[in-house]
């Protein structure tokens, strides 16, 4: 009889359990076992689950992806250079299939009060430093992908800033996926803790080393911001079109902390970004920005949830989508205002450009409000380029494609300008150009 992927994960877990980092840690052992039991019990969600209504993940659920274990091989400079990454003025950490590869370790050292380590290293050397927070924000059973990551948790990053520590350059976590013979799942796990008054920027980048490799990235990031802490968090996803990508970020914010998230999705065949923010104390603020561009057969799903749990918090959200070819976009943003979270301000907007007759956009902004002294709004639009503007540009001598690209560019540029780091803005614009011309070429062929 055929075994199901879920059964395979369960038996794989039994096989590799002893080799996972921190085997001697009873607390971690309990967490892992709970997670695998939860997978066994719940299985993968299907489209009848409200949270997965518009995203069919049967391609993931029907395949057993071998969890990547052990330590990473060294990445060759030449291979890395070929990716054209720019690390000027940043603190990079490179991961190969979810495993840290110590390429720059000799030359780089974070300033005092800041530690940037690989999770595998921390779990081996100083597990006590992560015990309080690791997996604590991710309730077992709430998301099967988080459980899968927790059960097989192997490596990732641990970023800790002590009281008032400030990191001026962005910490760049680059997740490179290599091609494998069998389908594999790389599952980086990140933990970011900012103590009172600390300030940092973290960038997650996802790239594929090969163009046609079939793998799953299932990344989970937990972030804790103490009082007055400030974090900028960027996700830039440029994986190849044959991959699947699940990115889950959970944030807990303390009093007057500030979290700014920017999620850029250009790559991946099937992408699901989950971003959950809990505003746990007064006057915490968060801003969520996102840009997603789907062409080819891409499917990009952005799920966000902001929980206003205490009074006087502010959240602001803007997601923009560009859907072309057979691309499909999903936006599901929920703002939940708990009873007594008075003086809440919450604004949410999702605007989308639908550019092809085979593209589709499904959007669902939601407000769920149980307090009365609030000011909340949301808006969603789906439309297309303004034909008058296209005509204007064409009358100035631009060809149709150029005119349209320029208008798309102006639609998305707002999101790029929100990025504070110039080198990243430039890279984003490059990616955008490549993406636009790729779409144009495809159209010409057709």
């Amino acid at each position, binding site marked *: 009889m055929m075994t199901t992927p879920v059964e395979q994960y369960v038996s794989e877990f039994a096989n590799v359990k002893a080799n996972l980092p921190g085997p001697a840690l009873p607390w971690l052992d309990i967490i892992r076992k709970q997670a695998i039991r939860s997978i066994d019990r719940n299985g993968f969600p299907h489209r009848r689950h409200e949270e997965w209504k518009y995203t069919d993940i049967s391609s993931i659920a029907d395949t057993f992806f071998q969890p990547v274990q052990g330590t990473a091989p060294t990445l060759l400079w030449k291979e890395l250079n070929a990716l054209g990454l720019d690390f000027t003025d940043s603190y990079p950490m490179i991961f190969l299939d979810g495993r840290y590869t110590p390429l720059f370790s000799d030359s780089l050292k974070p300033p005092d009060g800041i530690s940037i380590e690989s999770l595998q290293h921390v779990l081996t050397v100083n597990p006590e430093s992560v015990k309080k927070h690791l997996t604590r924000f991710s309730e077992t059973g709430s998301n099967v992908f988080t459980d899968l990551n927790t059960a097989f948790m192997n490596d990732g990053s641990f970023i800790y800033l002590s009281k008032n520590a400030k990191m001026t350059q962005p910490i760049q976590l680059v997740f490179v996926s290599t091609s494998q013979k069998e389908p594999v799942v790389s599952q980086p796990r990140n933990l970011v803790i900012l103590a009172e008054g600390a300030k940092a920027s973290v960038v997650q980048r996802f790239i594929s080393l090969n163009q046609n490799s079939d793998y799953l990235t299932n990344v989970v990031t937990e972030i804790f911001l103490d009082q007055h802490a400030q974090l900028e968090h960027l996700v830039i996803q440029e994986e190849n079109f044959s991959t699947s990508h699940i990115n889950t970020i959970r944030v807990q914010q303390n009093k007057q902390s500030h979290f700014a998230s920017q999620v850029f999705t250009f790559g991946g065949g099937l992408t699901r970004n989950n971003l959950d923010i809990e505003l746990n104390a007064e006057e915490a603020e968060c801003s969520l920005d996102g840009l997603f561009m789907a062409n080819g057969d891409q499917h990009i799903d952005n799920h966000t949830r902001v929980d206003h749990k205490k009074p006087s918090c502010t959240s602001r959200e803007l997601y923009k989508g560009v859907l072309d070819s057979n691309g499909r976009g999903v936006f599901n943003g929920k703002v939940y205002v708990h009873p007594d979270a*008075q003086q809440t301000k919450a604004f949410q907007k999702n605007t989308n450009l639908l550019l092809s007759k085979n593209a589709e956009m499904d959007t669902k*902004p939601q407000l769920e*409000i*149980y307090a009365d002294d609030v000011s909340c709004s*949301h808006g969603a639009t789906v439309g297309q380029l303004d034909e008058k503007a296209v005509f204007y540009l064409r009358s100035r001598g631009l060809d149709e494609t150029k005119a349209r690209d320029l208008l798309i560019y102006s639609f998305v540029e707002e999101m790029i300008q929100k990025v504070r780091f110039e080198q990243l803005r430039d890279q984003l614009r490059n990616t955008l150009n490549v993406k636009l011309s790729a779409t144009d070429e495809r159209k010409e062929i057709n």
Partner: protein
Amino acid sequence: MPEASLLKIGFKIINMETIETDLDSVLKQEYQHGFVTDVDESFLPPGLTEQTIRQISAIKKEPEFLLEWRLKAFERWLTLREPEWSTIHHPPINYQEISYYAAPKSLEDGPKSLDEVDPKLLETYEKLGIPIEEQKALSGIAVDAVFDSVSVATTFKAELEKVGVIFCSFSEAVQNHPDLVQKYLGTVVPQTDNFFATLNSAVFSDGAFVYIPKGVRCPMELSSYFRINATNTGQFERTLIIAEEGSYVSYLEGCTAPQRDENQLHAAVVELVAMEGAEIRYSTIQNWYPGDENGKGGIYNFVTKRGICKGDNAKISWTQVETGSAVTWKYPSVILKGDNSSGEFYSVALTNNYQQADTGTKMTHIGKNTHSTIISKGISAGHGQNAYRGLVKIAKNADNSRNFSQCDSLLMGNKSGAHTFPYIEVKNPTAQVEHEATTSKIGEDQLFLCQQRGISAEDAVSLIVNGFCKEIFKKLPMEFAVEARKLLSISLEGSVG
């Protein structure tokens, strides 16, 4: 609310033994000639089985096709489960404790004079400015010749017949126009649609039937209130309105006067069919008993309303003012099948005390150049919970379709809740879809300004809320609009201070 109190109020207590023996003999009878005779036709004992449906159908002397249709729905219903996706919470409903048929009450059973009527109810009538004779009619008292709703309705009927409009109870339509009923019943809301619609399809009691012939502009607003035998249409109402090519009709449902009903569960179905160039305007004022200040009692109102713009250039417009019921669950929708057709949804939903409302609309754009507008105003006071839930779906071939949605919520009191769940699905690159929603507290500065001008807090709230809903009231027929305004003020009583 204790479970035991639920849904038990509906039936008269009589000697159970005699019923059982009576029933047993009836149940054992084979189905003959389409009728079951010798049954007490005034009501059926609680319980829902295939026999119950056969009996309802027999009592109503329905043609074979309708019985078959009911039975098919019942078979389907047995496989369904009550939906759980809404924000509404209520104790479980025991469907076997409900009586599924009660004949329209004779006037003799009602109170003999206004002295016997609940004084609270009379007080509300007074505030609404309802004339004394009409108050009597509403309370179910036999009225004298001066105000005889039956004769008023008869006059109307004659006028309607002149232009060929059919306006009658659903049961009458089944007897007199079975072909029309058979042709359109279930074509907009199929039997299989959802739990409550399927239940309705199996057991529906009565309702209204309207047919507007080709090119006819219905000479008056049709109101269910003036329908003959409208005294008790029962809890499972079924309405079917057909507007032939180029016709127009405006239909009013409900009335502002509070309606006390003994049945706690209401599951109505309304189907509208608009042919090419036809226009149907459907206005509802729903003011069923909402339960008391502590959330005890009150009607559960699970309604499926849907219209189809079958032909090109057709138009369907839903306007609703929902202030009653403990639980409101309804999504009046439009399927925009014909090219250039348009759908509208204008709604005011008010929840006070422990009322819950989960309401909204579905606009399904299939034809080209189809337009839809959604304006929804939710007001939550006390412990009231109010949700807008809507779907705008643009199908692949709906070129140049357009939707605009606006959902505003007003909150009063820190125990109330307002929720917005719009679903937008777009598959066409020429479609334009816009949705916006706001939620905020009633303006302190506005309240202050009013009070400073000598307007009491309560009147100020009513003034502000009425301003908030003005857009919707404008869409109601005039006399309805005036009453709706008063109704809103009354429903908000006790929500401030």
